[in-house]
């Protein structure tokens, strides 16, 4: 009998791979992370920043499920900013720029803390497939390892091809060879695959930039950590610069646009609309005479990347000489030294409709995919998927049911549902506007939404569980106290709170629903509230502020879950359902939705088709009940 060396093997050491390996390890699986270069585990290949709008939500959710990213960002973050600070709590997005070295080291340190996680340096060339399920991996070195489940997180490495002008270089990242064998294996499984592209700007030497005339954007004075386990940030904070392109810059780009890999037709893959190259911006928004460029240091002064600046906003695939020419026309960059040129990269992705909502490949049991291979972009999107894929691979190897997050529970659930239901036509990025239950799914309450669930799913460790239980009891206690403390309209007026003189007593939470009343005001009325911590007080304020909306949304969620609870059998023969158009049958057969709700979200699905499916399911249920 052959015994498995590992329960779970994770291929790749990027942000998806790190989370997948850590999640499998937290579940208790004997886990291996195999990557071609151990030193690049946790590398930030592109923008040196974590979080943002929607993305910050993902990081908080990963953290609530005891993941790596939030903790690493707190150790590596050098410019914390709460985006949308002036707007409502649901749409605030924590973000930080990160020192690439500090961040990478933090990820590697955290991974080394898991005793049941082995890090192996080898490029994976192929999968071992036995009895129609995955059984391990084969390395380029010729070694092989057996496992109950495998998670593939190869990012842009699957047949990666870099474009700079007319130059094409097969690579997963600059200077790193692409993965060819693994890609062929996936094609061999009959998976629908495609090409996507993304791009990165040149890197600039900080000391060659004329910072004197450049507007600076400082970090927040009171940086708020990503991780629910941290209450402060100790890393020194820096500022970043903001400069602008000009008509002169656009002229250089416009004159040379035919040399861009994107415009010469050399690139087949589709790029993201929300992260356009500077060529795209100049061409598509020809009426704009300037575009913003953020100058983001990649490290603390004096550190490994301290002299490197990431110019956010000018990603490009123009030839080197043109890059240099247009960059040097940008204010402050007249004498800039380019450390590395920008490029576009094309890579294979697997149509995520090949996956179930636990990120398992439908056609090969035991195989899980996460990150850019599923058509997403962004570290945070990768991390969220990595956690779900790693956990489910471990659960699969141990014979447990999948753990699935739906759209009403988490941004991670929104993202995965979008992917497996609708597929992608461009690299998928999270936005808060993708989440229909946005007011409920906030960055500030990710732990209240997910940590307890994570405990039962087996992905949350004891330290976090205990910390969360403490926080939850203090929130519950504060809520109860606020509900029991009341004022009459006259008493309220005496405290300077103006409410309708309707004789109704209002409790603390109701009073905080008034614009002028915050927790500090209540503390002035009831001094016994002074022992409530600022975090808990903030939660109470948010609950009060959103009160009516959250109730309406809750009703919405109940209706949503009704359809989500209607499970669709995995072997359902859609051809046998009458009253379905061939188009609907094709779409349903491709996606094989897990629930009726998911079926309804498939693009182009008509209410009539869903009614027909529902009718069929109900008749089938009746038949089997009669048995």
């Amino acid at each position: 009998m052959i015994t498995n060396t590992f329960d779970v093997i994770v291929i790749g050491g990027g942000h998806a791979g790190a989370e997948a390996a850590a999640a499998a390890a937290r579940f208790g699986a004997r886990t291996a992370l195999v990557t071609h270069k151990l030193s690049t585990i946790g590398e930030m290949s592109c923008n040196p920043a974590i979080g943002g709008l929607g993305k910050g939500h993902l990081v908080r959710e990963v953290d609530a499920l005891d993941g790596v990213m939030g903790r690493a960002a707190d150790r590596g973050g050098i410019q914390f900013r709460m985006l949308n600070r002036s707007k409502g709590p649901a749409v605030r997005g924590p973000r930080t720029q990160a020192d690439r070295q500090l961040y990478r080291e933090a990820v590697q340190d955290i991974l080394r803390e898991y005793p049941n996680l082995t890090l192996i340096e080898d490029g994976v060339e192929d999968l071992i497939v036995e009895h129609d399920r995955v059984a391990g991996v084969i390395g380029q070195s010729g070694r092989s390892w057996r496992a109950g489940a495998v998670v593939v997180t190869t990012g842009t490495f699957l047949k990666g091809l870099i474009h700079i002008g007319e130059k094409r270089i097969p690579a997963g990242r600059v200077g790193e060879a692409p993965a060819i064998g693994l890609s062929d294996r996936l094609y061999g499984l009959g998976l629908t695959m495609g090409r996507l592209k993304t791009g990165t700007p040149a890197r600039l030497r900080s000391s060659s930039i004329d910072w004197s005339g450049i507007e600076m954007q400082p970090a927040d004075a009171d940086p708020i950590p990503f991780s629910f386990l941290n209450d402060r940030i100790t890393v020194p904070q820096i500022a970043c610069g903001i400069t602008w392109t000009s008509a002169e810059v656009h002229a250089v780009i416009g004159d040379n646009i035919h040399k861009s890999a994107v415009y010469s037709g050399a690139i087949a893959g589709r790029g993201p609309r929300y992260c356009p190259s500077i060529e795209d911006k100049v061409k598509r928004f020809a009426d704009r005479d300037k575009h913003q460029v953020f100058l983001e240091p990649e490290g603390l002064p004096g550190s490994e990347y301290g002299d490197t600046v990431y110019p956010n906003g000018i990603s490009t695939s123009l030839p080197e000489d043109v890059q240099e020419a247009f960059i040097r026309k940008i204010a402050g960059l007249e004498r800039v030294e380019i450390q590395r040129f920008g490029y576009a990269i094309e890579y294979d992705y697997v149509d995520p409709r090949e996956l179930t909502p636990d990120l398992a490949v439908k056609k090969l049991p035991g195989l899980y995919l996460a990150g850019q291979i599923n058509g997403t972009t962004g570290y945070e999107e990768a991390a969220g998927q990595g956690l779900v894929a790693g956990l489910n691979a471990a659960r699969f190897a141990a014979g447990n049911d999948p753990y699935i997050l739906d759209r009403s529970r988490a941004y991670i659930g929104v993202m995965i549902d979008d992917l497996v239901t609708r597929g992608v036509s461009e690299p998928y990025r999270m936005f808060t506007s993708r989440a229909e239950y946005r007011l409920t799914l906030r960055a500030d309450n990710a732990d209240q939404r997910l940590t307890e669930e994570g405990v039962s799913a087996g992905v949350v460790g004891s330290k976090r569980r205990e910390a969360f239980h403490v926080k939850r009891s203090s929130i519950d206690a504060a809520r109860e106290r606020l509900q029991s403390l009341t004022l009459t309209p006259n008493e309220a007026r005496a405290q300077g709170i103006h409410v309708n003189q309707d004789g109704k007593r209002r409790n603390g939470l109701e009073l905080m629903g008034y614009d002028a009343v915050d927790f500090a005001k209540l503390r002035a009325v009831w001094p016994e509230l002074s022992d409530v911590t600022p975090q808990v007080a903030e939660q109470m304020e948010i609950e009060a502020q959103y009160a009516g909306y959250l109730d309406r949304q809750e009703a919405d969620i109940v209706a949503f879950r009704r359809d989500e609870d209607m499970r669709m059998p995995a072997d359902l023969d859609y051809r046998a359902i009458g009253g379905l158009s061939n188009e609907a049958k094709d779409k349903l057969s491709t996606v094989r939705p897990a629930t009726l709700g998911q079926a309804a979200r498939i693009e182009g699905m008509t209410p009539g088709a869903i009614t027909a499916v529902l009718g069929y399911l109900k008749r089938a249920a009746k038949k089997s009940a009669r048995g």
Partner: protein
Amino acid sequence: MARGPSDTIIALASGSGRAGVAVIRISGGGSAALLKGMTRLPTSGTGEAGGGVSRETSSTFPRPRHAVIRTLHDDQGGFLDEALVLWMPAPHSYTGEDVAELHVHGGPAVVEAVIGAALKTRLCRIAEPGEFTRRAFDAGRMDLTQAEAIGDLIDAETEGQRRQAGRLYQGEAARVFEGWRGLLVSAMAALEASIDFPDEADIPGEINLTALEPIEALAVDLEAALGDAGRLASVRDGFRIAILGPPNAGKSSLMNRLARREAAIVSPIPGTTRDVVEVRLVLAGYPVWVADTAGLREAADAIEAEGIRRALTRAEEADLRIWVSDASDVSRETSSTFREGDLRVLNKADLLNGDSPPLAGSEDVFVVSARTGAGLDPLERRLAQIVRDRLETDEAPLVTRARHRELVEEALAAIERGLEGARIGIGAELVSEDLRLAARALGRITGSIDAEDLLDRIFSQFCVGK
């Protein structure tokens, strides 16, 4: 055979009763086999006319969408009828399935024999009411509003109803609903852009109240459409006229005159009509319900009192009130509830002996004799004119169904909440939430709602991306 949504179904598609032609419709996967059997073609092989053989003969399967003459037989080979046969293979048919239409001679016996023979093959079953349309909808051949309109078209008895249903079917209403939803999505795009791309130079940072101006206008449109809904309900459900007046003024006689039949018992005993009696007629192409009510007076007993209460309720609900009084005795008139726009009928003109009653000659006062029919023509003409004036319009009817009305009301409530919120300065995410709920409600009318719409709108309007 067991009933299922994938069965082949058959039904008489035209009206029942004697007619020149009756149309029998068959839909489903078994249509071809059934048609072959009934036209005595071999059931194996394609049997279809080959591309090279263009000549249509009675031994070939009909070409798609070409009318051909075929003899229909029962399973014993007996002659049923000679029929015009149309073959419309999936997906290009009404239901999206294989459809055959048999245009047979219109006698009930022929229809019964043909359908009976078809059922005997066990290849099909009788369609349930509305099942053809249901299948068309399920196959995505039409959206919800169109499917509903088909029902209305089939049910249309009057010209007004037909025109209204026709507009709905042509998707005019759907286009308007989609247009409304489009306005919401545009406004949301501006709000969402300020939320999701706060660092972008291209995007204003704060709630842009001008982005909400089209929504203010939309709220007015929705309100108007809902107000209009009363008129449209009248087109669908009938214009309501109540006949009111003191006992024994001849209300029932007048109604019978209008209805040209004895719908209400007419008697000289005051208080004969104790409940509301209604007749339906068509005036100016619109359905009209005329209600005869109990005479209004101090009631003699509890039953009559109840009748009077109902009469007053009906008067309240009516689109038009006709007050009838005895021309020879106008003093008994209960004019306290007379309103602007009501009609006044002075009945029993035949008893006047040529005297002119008071008020005669004023506009909207009609001197008639329900007994002899004198003076009724001007009254009917005036009624038809009122019905036409109130119901007819060139505008597209929009909110005609209770389901639509509820969703439009839901959308309007959400929009008003959002606009009020924006005025008092609540967060963009809350305004956007209300607009999202409104867009979702409108999307439900036609059955579409999509978050991708929003992102498409944002990316086409703004240059975003660092």
